[in-house]
């Protein structure tokens, strides 16, 4: 187990990157604390797999350093880094039995046979494959193969970090839950540093202590699931996390009041007069609809019942506003005004969040 430090790290796939756009991964400084479970969340192509492969040593960064517990491993080969990685698609050694597959990483490091046997048994129990240990891996289902890959990743106890690259893509939905729960249990019991790449917010939010959100080759926010929900640092985070995502409305900001299309909105804090293109971000959970009275004039266009609650789609001066009706609360008849709970209003200047005066950074 180790603390992983990324120092001034960046990567470009082209040999001579000329502009920032050539970088798949833009300059980045970050510490992955020892023993924490991180999720690396982002849309496809945002650079999260690149980052993961740099950490595991499968890719050499164009610039910067990687340190494991302060020890520079930037140019160390994968094997020396002593990490485990599980890939998106199952990688199993077809001609080996399940048992041999699980034992392979330990055998290659010359582990004691008795230890290998007990370890394999333990892992097999964890992934629920004790019954098929002596079957050849060839011909197993994709599910089972991916479980073997996971098992191979977890079989070594002394790894510096466990890396997962969207490991549950090919797994059945009900198995996803089970495996993710097992990973969490594993993390709790052994305290490995874990980095889990995914584009699925549910997976990220349920798995990790801290979620690292990436956008366009850049880390835009690192925080607990709650922080990501309540205080998205970038409009992308607001819109990418949450279902539906955060409403973003162009607004003028003056102190503690914002003006959206001529209507005043209370901000719940003093923001001064931020420079740049200012916007308000309000999660649908904090939007209230009413008939008449104060608030932003809106036209309700659609109501979707998603089971636990209803989502109302409305239109305000051409900008879409989503609202979530609390469980059991009916939509007021002829609703034509939207008001925002000041606790849930965030202010953005040029896409980045502005902290109100007095908030600790």
């Amino acid at each position, binding site marked *: 187990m180790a603390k992983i430090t990324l120092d001034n790290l960046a990567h470009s796939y082209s040999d001579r990157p000329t502009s920032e756009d050539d970088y*798949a991964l833009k300059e980045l400084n970050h510490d992955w604390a020892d023993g924490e479970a991180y999720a690396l969340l982002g849309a*496809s192509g945002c650079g999260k*797999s*690149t980052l993961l492969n740099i950490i595991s040593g*499968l890719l050499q960064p164009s610039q910067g350093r990687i340190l494991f517990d302060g020890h520079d491993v930037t*140019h160390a080969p994968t094997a020396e880094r002593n990490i485990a990685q599980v890939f*998106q698609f199952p990688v199993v050694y077809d001609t080996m039995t399940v048992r041999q597959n699980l034992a392979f990483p330990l055998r290659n490091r010359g582990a004691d046979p008795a230890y290998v046997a007990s370890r394999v048994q333990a892992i097999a129990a964890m992934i629920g494959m004790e019954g098929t240990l002596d079957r050849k891996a060839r011909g197993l289902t994709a599910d089972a193969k991916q479980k073997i890959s996971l098992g191979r990743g977890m079989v070594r106890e002394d790894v510096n970090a466990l890396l997962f690259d969207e490991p549950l893509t090919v797994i059945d939905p009900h198995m996803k839950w089970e495996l993710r729960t097992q990973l969490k249990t594993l993390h709790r019991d052994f305290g490995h540093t874990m980095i889990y790449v995914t584009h699925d917010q549910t997976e990220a939010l349920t798995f990790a202590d801290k979620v690292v959100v990436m956008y366009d080759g850049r880390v835009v926010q690192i925080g607990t699931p709650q922080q990501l929900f309540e205080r998205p640092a970038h409009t992308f985070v607001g819109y990418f996390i949450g279902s539906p995502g955060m409403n973003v409305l162009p607004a003028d900001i003056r102190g503690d009041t914002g003006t959206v299309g001529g209507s005043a909105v209370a901000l719940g804090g003093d923001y001064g007069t931020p420079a740049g293109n200012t916007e308000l971000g309000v999660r649908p959970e904090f939007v209230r609809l009413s008939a008449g009275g104060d608030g932003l004039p809106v036209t309700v266009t659609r109501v979707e019942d998603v089971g636990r609650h209803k989502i109302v789609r409305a239109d305000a001066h051409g900008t879409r506003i989503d609202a979530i009706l609390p469980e059991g609360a009916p939509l007021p008849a002829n609703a034509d005004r939207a008001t925002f709970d000041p606790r849930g209003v965030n202010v953005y200047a040029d896409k980045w969040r502005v902290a109100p005066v007095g908030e600790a950074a």
Partner: protein
Amino acid sequence: MTDATAAPGAATIPGDLTASRPRAATRRRFRPNGSAVVIALYLLFLMLPLYWLLNMSLKTNAEILGSFTLFPRNLTFENYATILTDPSWYSGYVNSLIYVTLNVAITLTVALPAAYAFSRYSFMGDKHLFFWLLTNRMAPPAVFALPFFQLYSSVNLFDTHIAVALAHCLFNVPLAVWILEGFMRGVPKEIDETAYIDGYSFPRFFVKIFMPLIASGIGVAAFFAFMFSWVELLLSRTLTAVDAKPIAATMTRTVGASGVDWGVLAAAGVLTIVPGALVIWFVRNYIAKGFALGRV
């Protein structure tokens, strides 16, 4: 896989080969160089005899026999001129090309529907039929030489291009069926069903939709049909006398009363390599995939 669409390489790491290459090379100092040496030696082994042939074709017979030289001292195209101006020489090339082309056309025409049937339907005796077809690829041409001679003579096809083309179908059709079947298996059956629902007739579906989908497979089958028809000599020599005589058989002419005309023989050899080399050049980007025969 999703990553690959938006950020080329984010998931598949082609960068492993480009960006990180220099460092990887210094780290594992011996392997890349070792590989290069192995490949260079192998290619040298392949090219030396070919170079020697080319070298000889550009020499005069006097130089060939008189002194041992690693490259032509008196560069001459005389040998090539002999071949390209004498109809009994160059008609050999024309004959070869005619029956090879005929063979490729016939092979593909009959193999395509059959391969489709094998890949899509099960019918009485299909497995046995398939294996029986393959057995013909295993038939030694030497076994068939004499019977072919008698058969084609009796139907008055002896010494025609079509006779050689048909004879070569014996081993090319089974191979083509087998290759095409492999490629067709890779095309989901839903495509056929969708087309039928959209109101396509079978022939139209086959030509308009299905054939473009297995274009690479057709290319591979054609390549192999060309290859085996072009290089075969035993049958094509047995079945021809004058009018359809292949170039490869014409080459024996260089043995005359005054001994072997080495220069012309070498030039003729070089010229037989040219069509094959051209074909390879055109398919160079598909070779690796093609040789997998749709089966990996």
